[in-house]
């Protein structure tokens, strides 16, 4: 088992889809105009007037069996400390095999560098010992929780133990580290 396994939960009961997380990520990581590393998905199901809406803040799922890492021919996409999935820009050829392999379409090509980019779980923060991501920090409803899944005392472990949750596209077999609380 890895020493740390970072993960994230988004509480779909309290997320209002304000997109503060999206703006915080764009600002923190100085993303080019028109590109995002996280986004809001709204799902409406049921038959009128009995409709149910689910709002989720989504991003790279930092899968523990990541299809993108397997597809990458140069090792640019790799597992990093904390079990996260990262991209080393200096090794990326922009072949886009990782983008084709990702079932969540969470990656994009950064037009400035020509390399593939995506959510890093704020690797630049966690590598310096910070415990929060930019999106978590600004969430006004405290829907986003980031932490170590391998630490039984972490808030994220408690939430996953107490609440019902799901991951996206579990049939894809990628074992995401990103959970959505029901």
């Amino acid at each position, binding site marked *: 088992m890895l020493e740390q396994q970072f993960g994230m939960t988004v509480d779909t009961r309290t997320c209002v889809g304000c997109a503060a997380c999206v703006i915080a990520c764009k600002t923190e990581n100085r993303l080019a105009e028109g590109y995002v590393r996280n986004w809001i998905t*709204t799902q409406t199901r049921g038959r009128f007037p009995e409709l149910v809406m689910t709002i989720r803040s989504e991003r790279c799922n930092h899968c523990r069996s990541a299809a993108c890492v397997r597809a*990458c*021919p140069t090792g640019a996409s790799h597992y990093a400390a904390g079990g996260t999935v990262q991209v080393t820009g200096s090794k990326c050829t922009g072949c886009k095999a990782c983008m084709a392999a990702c079932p969540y379409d969470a990656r994009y*090509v950064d037009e400035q560098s*020509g390399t593939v980019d995506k959510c890093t779980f704020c690797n630049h923060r966690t590598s310096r010992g910070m415990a929060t991501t930019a999106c978590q920090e600004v969430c006004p409803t405290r829907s986003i929780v980031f932490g170590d899944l391998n630490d039984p005392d972490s808030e994220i472990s408690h939430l996953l133990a107490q609440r019902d949750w799901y*991951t996206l596209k579990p049939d894809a077999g990628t074992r995401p580290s990103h959970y959505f609380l029901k």
Partner: protein
Amino acid sequence: MEATSTRANPLVDPGLTIWNQDVAIYLFLGGIVAGVMILSGAMRLWYKQEEPSLALRLLPWGNLALISIGMFCLFLDLENRFNSWRFYLVFKAYSPMSWGAWVLLLVYPVSAHMAWAETPAHWRETVLRKVPLLRPWGEWSVRARRNFAALSIVSGSVLGIYTGILLGAMPSRPFWNSSLLGPLFLVSGVSTGAAFMLLFRLNQGERRFLGFLDFLLILAELGIIALWIIGMAAGGEASLQALKLIFGGPYTAAFWSLVIALGLVTPAIAEFIEYKHRAIPGRGAALLVLGGGFALRWIMVYAGQHSGWASEASAGLF
């Protein structure tokens, strides 16, 4: 169920469009090269009916040109071309693209040796007289001609299968995710290779042999396509959604008309009639096969990117 997303990343939304005509052309040319490598190697080893024609002997040179154009297309598709050398610093066993990069490195020297060894002796001698430094290699290459022919069959087969596995090994794209794509692209590659060879001035025996062989290859290709469709039809929700791309979806007309009707069935009928009446195969059927082979790869590349895992069906929301 209705889903909306605020994400609008270029090349990703509303549908994935990361690979375009550059990749389709590369896969098509890679298939032809694989086919010509296999067929020219096999004909050197086992085709004893008559002296090989000049065109057949010079075709491996064409291979070098075609694979270079294909590689250039692949290079154009890279978003960060300055890092393309990174392909050759590591070998990633789980990455089909890594396999492809290294296989291409094998294809070049094998094709070059084949091309040289098959070049008529007096032309080779003219070159060696002008560049005597090449003589030891040039003479060794000709002595090892049969070994290179065998190597040509092996490396051509790996190249042909790889072009299919590159797409087939993507579990996130149900339209591609089939182990049959490797054999399909290999058989289609050999078929388009045979068709490409038939465009040149081969002698009558060679034309008859390649024409009938192409007929058999088309039958095999139709069989593999049927199995691939059955595989998707017998799959889960994601596979069924993917199948709709060619059954009522946006690629239906192109797939059934360009690939199946014009690219496979029509040339198969023409080649069978030519075989039955002992006629010498012409270039019409060959051109249709080449058009169909290109359409197959074009549709595969584009349609596959439109397939994915249905989020609502597999999100565990219910």
